[in-house]
């Protein structure tokens, strides 16, 4: 029965391939949007990922960095530094802001670094220096390329101008990028003194970060301390959350589109072959067998579409990232699993109406000439 269903499909190669391509297009859209959000979300946490202290300390009630504000009195950093198990405390000042580059504007984390604090600065440079001096800024190389500026040019944050002295690598995303200035310059922008935003705490060897985080929270009031892995997960979850609704909506729309395509193809197939299906019934095929053959055809078309989408995603999407470096794309295996499950649902839902039609088909029509 399945052999017949398969060979019947192959007699209409163009139609089947066209339908599979339509299904693939819908799936590719979902995979692409998922890749954009995953890529951007991964890029958003890149600063946390690369600085990698054992513990992050921030204001109580704050549990992430993206789109967040945190203020800590400077004495709290001193107190934490004295706790047993703490090897080093690196304070940073941090602001979500807009960097003006010529007539362009770019959303950016602005990180204020203490003099000589390489611990919290850029991890890889394309050109120039990695630590700024007063009135200087390190900006992402991609941002500089897009704005067609280079070392020695000027950018501004709020009303303060900075001379670009370094171009960092791997610090740009469409949603956010990272600009480094001195601690003092960022204090001026924020009109604040004696406060930090986050503390990067490195522990002595063998110290459990979970236990030390708890101890820090017990000993220092109104702060939140999180082990690195927990903090990075929290920030990723927060940044993904902003895209999840859009990904979900796109998945629903594209799945509905794919279902329509599969349903239309399966229905056309059934209408074209209704006489043969009636013959099969007359010859003794059970309704369930014939319905299964219709579902099999839907699954075959959807699987072909899914396969085409996967091949496209694995071959073309990585090239987009190379050609358009400002777009961070990350194709995740979980996206394929998700689309695979969606494809299964699409195939079954798409075959419901054709299957119902087939189950009602009158076998006596086999006698009609």
């Amino acid at each position: 029965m399945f052999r017949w269903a398969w060979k019947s499909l192959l007699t209409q190669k163009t139609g089947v391939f066209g339908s599979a391509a339509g299904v693939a297009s819908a799936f590719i859209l979902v995979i692409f949007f998922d890749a954009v959000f995953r890529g951007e979300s991964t890029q958003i946490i890149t600063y946390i990922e690369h600085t990698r202290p054992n513990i992050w300390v921030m204001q109580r009630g704050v549990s992430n960095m993206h789109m967040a504000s945190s203020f800590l009195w400077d004495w709290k950093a001193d107190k934490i530094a004295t706790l047993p198990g703490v090897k080093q405390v690196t304070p940073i000042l941090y602001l979500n802001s807009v960097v003006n580059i010529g007539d362009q504007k770019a959303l950016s984390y602005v990180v204020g670094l203490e003099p000589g604090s390489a611990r919290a600065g850029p991890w890889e440079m394309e050109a120039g220096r990695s630590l700024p001096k007063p009135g200087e800024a390190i900006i992402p190389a991609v941002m500089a390329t897009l704005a067609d500026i280079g070392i020695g040019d000027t950018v501004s944050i709020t009303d303060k101008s900075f001379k670009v002295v370094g171009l960092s690598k791997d610090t740009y995303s469409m949603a956010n990028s990272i600009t480094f200035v001195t601690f003092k310059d960022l204090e001026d922008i924020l009109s604040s003194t004696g406060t930090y935003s986050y503390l990067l705490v490195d522990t002595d060897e063998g110290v459990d970060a979970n236990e030390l985080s708890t101890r820090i929270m017990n000993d220092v009031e109104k702060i939140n301390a999180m082990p690195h892995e927990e903090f990075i997960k929290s920030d990723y979850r927060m940044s993904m959350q902003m895209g999840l609704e859009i990904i979900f909506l796109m998945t629903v729309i594209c799945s509905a589109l794919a279902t329509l395509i599969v349903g239309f193809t399966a229905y056309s197939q059934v209408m074209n072959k209704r006489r043969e299906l009636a013959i099969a019934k007359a010859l003794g095929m059970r309704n369930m067998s014939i319905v299964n053959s219709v579902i099999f055809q839907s699954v075959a078309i959807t699987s072909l579409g899914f396969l085409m989408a996967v091949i496209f995603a694995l071959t073309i999407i990585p090239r987009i990232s190379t050609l358009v470096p400002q777009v961070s794309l990350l194709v995740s295996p979980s996206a394929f699993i998700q689309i695979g499950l969606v494809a299964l649902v699409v195939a079954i839902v798409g075959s419901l109406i054709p299957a119902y039609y087939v189950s009602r088909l009158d076998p006596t029509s086999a006698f009609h000439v």
Partner: protein
Amino acid sequence: MSDSQLLTTTHLSKFFGSGHTEVRAVNDVSFDIAHSEIVLIMGPSGSGKTTLLSMIGGLLRPTSGIVKIDGTDITTLGESQLPAIRALKIGFIFQAFNLLDALTVEENILFPAQLRKGGINQARPRAKALIEKLGLTHRSKALPKTLSGGEKQRVAIARALINQPQLILADEPTGNLDSESGQEVLMILHDIARDEGCSVILVTHDPRVEDIADRILWLEDGALRDRKSEQHAWVRDPVCGMRVDEWTATLFNEYQGKRYAFCSKRCQERFAENPANYAEM
């Protein structure tokens, strides 16, 4: 029913619609068919032949009456049991051949074998034997679209026989064939009844079939009647020259005010292509 009867229909009726619009397609038909018997059901168009065949084949539920095949009353069987009866006890042969386009000759023949015990693999030797017997060896891997009408009907016959059914139901098996292929198919059906021991019910307008039939049932207005000899109105098919009963024929063309009857659709099509070539001057 005696042991020699394979099929018995008792007061079989099928009505469509109700009240003033009720149509009695088959009305109180009773008859028996013995093992290995070839029975011809004839009658004018619309007399209920195909409806009767559909009920015997378990494709259509009667309004009333009984159909017993080999002792089993198929009218009492549920929808889930009828497919097995159709697949294992009955072989169908259709006027339009009804082969499955995507499958080869061999696959078409093996198609109903999926339902029998042992499935396709056990049926392969029989399929091979039938292919040889019906002269299709060189066409076993061919697709139906590449076959002639006669070859297609031979494949359909082999398909009907693959599960060794006790009853063959053939609806106008020569209707789409030229006279030579039609004659060949009739001889095959005759041999099947003799060699395979199965009964054959033929619904047809083709008077040649009378030569191979053991018995003829005449259906008129849904009921069995005696056929009178004067109800023949023999004319010649203008294309093949075969004798056609104008009274029971279904294929006609008008040309220059005269009506022509045809033995088969193929002859009718040939006539339509160039009527001047065949019409009487």
